[in-house]
């Protein structure tokens, strides 16, 4: 099978691709005009970075770093719900 060095370099390549796509998302977020587009761009950025945290935790052999993935995914969903409620023109407590 693949040696350990090869596995780690494949993982590092995946981390590099995630960073590249996050930079594209951030560029698009900085030049975007309408509000729903910006909201789904923040979503994509957050989900990307959740995977990035887990990959970084495997890459540095540190279990302590993987904690942040679940809150990132959950609070991006909450951000979605708040913005859609605002766009529908309803109060936040409805």
């Amino acid at each position: 099978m693949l040696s350990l060095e090869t596995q780690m370099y494949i993982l590092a390549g995946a981390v590099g691709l995630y960073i590249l796509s996050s930079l594209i998302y951030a560029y698009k977020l900085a030049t975007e005009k309408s509000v729903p587009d910006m909201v789904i761009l923040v979503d994509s950025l957050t989900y990307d970075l959740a995977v990035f945290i887990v990959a970084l935790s495997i890459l540095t052999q540190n279990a302590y770093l993987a904690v942040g993935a679940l809150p990132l995914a959950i609070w991006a969903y909450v951000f979605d719900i708040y913005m859609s409620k605002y766009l529908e023109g309803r109060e936040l407590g409805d």
Partner: protein
Amino acid sequence: MMEAATLLWIYFYSVLLVTVFLSLYGVYRRPNVLKKIIMLSIFGDAANVLAVLMGFRKNAASPPVYPGQTYTEWSAPNSTQLQQFASAAVDPVPQVLVVTAIVIGLAVLIFLSAAAILLYRHYGTLDVRLIRQKIIEGGVEE
């Protein structure tokens, strides 16, 4: 010619200081009260990151949480393991302080938001220049 690492660390501190001064400029110059509050939140966040960066260390190599390294049966680490751990670990004291600072900043911002809503109910606007005009015209003192 300095090393690349030294230049990068100078860049970290300078970009954080630029963020801090940009947000303070926003607090001072923007007319809307809510924009002032948003820039104040960014100011607090940048200050927190600055505090954590002071505890970060060059070539910090992913310390294990416990020096003994086993999770099921804990054994006291010997002096070599402790030395390795202390030579690679980041400083935990600013992180503990920043947890408190985040929560207190949240409380302060909730108070300021309630004050902004009351201000809008009283004057009908959030622009500080219009509020000053209304105070001068209406003869309300302070």
